[in-house]
């Protein structure tokens, strides 16, 4: 009794193969990530130091550090998020919670989807025409952030809509039937329960903003623009109407545009870029966790 039949043995074998295969493919994913990070850090090791991070590039980039581009990317990321997160989240709320299903809504949705598919170099051209020239921002941190915002908006809108749609309709029904307005429902029930999903969408845009080069190329980033390394001016190193340096661009410069840059410095710059992204994303994830644990509801 209860002994296994041949067919059941076969099923068990297949089961084992399936489990092992899935595990191997997961490893296939993890290994390159670890390999890239290890390789970068090992190659960068000789050049990594606090001074490298805290000094401006000097001597035609051949010595000094990466302070200016690091600060530039930091500013770019936060300014971009400050523009695109509120707009994107509010638009997502409108589309998911208020908009009726009519041709206008459908056109807007279609536009959002298509905007997400536009290559970044096209965003760059648009940003140059719209923000730098037409709106007269010039090549500046603001123009670059606006361009980046346009690029990240569709993703934020879409992820916001998805997060909102995941909140069960029965919660809304309960609220509406007690006489709550849509906004009361959104503020007290829907948003608190979708906040972590919404923030996840926003967080994913951080690394994209920090990593892209094309959209800022014509709109604000420059080859060399040192910033104050200390003192009062270092609190707000770049003003929004100035051009700035950025890590992605700086890495490109170090690798292809200037001679005599040591390989260690190139790798160290790459490590710093990855580190910055991890730092900002980590901060945002921390915020998300904090929000999740400290909600009053």
């Amino acid at each position, binding site marked *: 009794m209860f002994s296994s039949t041949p067919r059941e043995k076969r099923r068990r074998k297949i089961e084992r193969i399936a489990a092992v295969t899935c595990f191997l493919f997961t490893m296939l994913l993890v290994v390159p990530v670890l390999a890239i990070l290890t390789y970068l850090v090992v190659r960068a090791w000789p050049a990594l130091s606090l001074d490298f991070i805290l000094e401006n590039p000097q001597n035609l980039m051949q010595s000094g550090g990466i302070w200016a581009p690091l600060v530039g990317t930091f500013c770019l990321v936060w300014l971009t998020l400050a523009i695109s997160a509120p707009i994107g989240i509010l638009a997502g709320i409108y589309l998911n919670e208020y908009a*009726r299903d009519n041709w206008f809504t459908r056109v807007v949705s279609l536009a959002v989807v298509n905007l997400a598919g536009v290559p970044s170099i096209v965003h760059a051209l648009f940003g140059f025409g719209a923000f730098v020239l037409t709106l007269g921002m010039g090549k500046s941190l603001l123009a670059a952030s606006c361009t980046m915002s346009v690029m990240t908006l569709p993703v934020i809108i879409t992820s916001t809509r998805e997060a909102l749609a995941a909140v069960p309709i029965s*919660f809304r029904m309960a609220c509406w039937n007690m006489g709550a307005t849509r906004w009361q429902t959104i503020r007290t029930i829907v948003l608190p329960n979708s906040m972590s999903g919404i923030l996840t969408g926003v967080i994913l845009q951080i690394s994209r903003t920090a990593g892209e080069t094309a959209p800022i190329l014509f709109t604000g980033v420059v080859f060399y623009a040192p910033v104050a390394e200390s003192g009062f001016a270092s609190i707000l190193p770049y003003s929004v109407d100035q051009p700035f340096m950025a890590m992605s661009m700086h890495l490109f410069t170090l690798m292809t545009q200037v001679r005599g840059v040591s390989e260690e410095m190139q790798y160290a710059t790459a490590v710093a870029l990855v580190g910055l992204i991890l730092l900002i994303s980590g901060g945002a994830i921390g915020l998300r966790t904090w929000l999740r644990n400290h909600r009053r509801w």
Partner: protein
Amino acid sequence: MTHKHDEHNERDDSIQTEGLNLWYGTFQALHDIHLRIRSRMITSLIGPSGCGKTTLLRCFNRINERFGYVRTEGSIRVLGKNIYDPDVSLSELRKSIGMVFQRPNPLPISIRENVLFGLRIHSERGDFTRAMQDEMVESALRDVQLWDDVKDQLKKRAVHLSLEQQQKLCIARLLPLKPQVILMDEPCSALDAEGTEQIELLLEQLSEKYTIVIVTHNMGQARRVSHECIFMLHGRMIEHDSTFTIFNNPKNPETDQYVSGHYG
């Protein structure tokens, strides 16, 4: 159609409809409904699936309008007031007409906050002191006989309660708003026999203070709890009478078939 209302006057009615028609797009879900729901009584809506019971219930607080493609015709009076009058505030209307759903849907907040939710929506911050709030929570939970079960865990999230307790909570959260009418859409269909019995007992008590309209699929339940019964078929009201008459001496052969088919 049968009306048996000669023995009471209109002032006893909580809800009256006249010539009520409703369309979802081009599909007509309600046909020419004339009915009167008597105050402080339990009226049950019975009829096969898809006959329009939920739709009718949702007319009474105008929640159907949340679907953009719904069109309503005819008049609905609640407590004597035509709810389609231009000066009617939907928020106030829904405050005095509570709705309980098929699946218990407590909000993802604490038990205490669930009970106070309606109040928070309809009042400004600071209108009620902490002590008043505590009192209201206790009295609402006592009214649904939930207080003893949950008094030590008011801060816990409501979704951790059993289905039966959740459904009681969904009733309790209506009470601080002092509703006149409570609409219930198959409130026991997600519950086991024990839970159903509990809710039925509760209905009995609540009907002393509130007008209750309950949709039910359970013939036994309609017989046990309701004073009057409305039988619907294909979007039409077929018969409205006292529960006893509907079950023992219906005028309409279709009613007879329906009620006997379910327990005969």
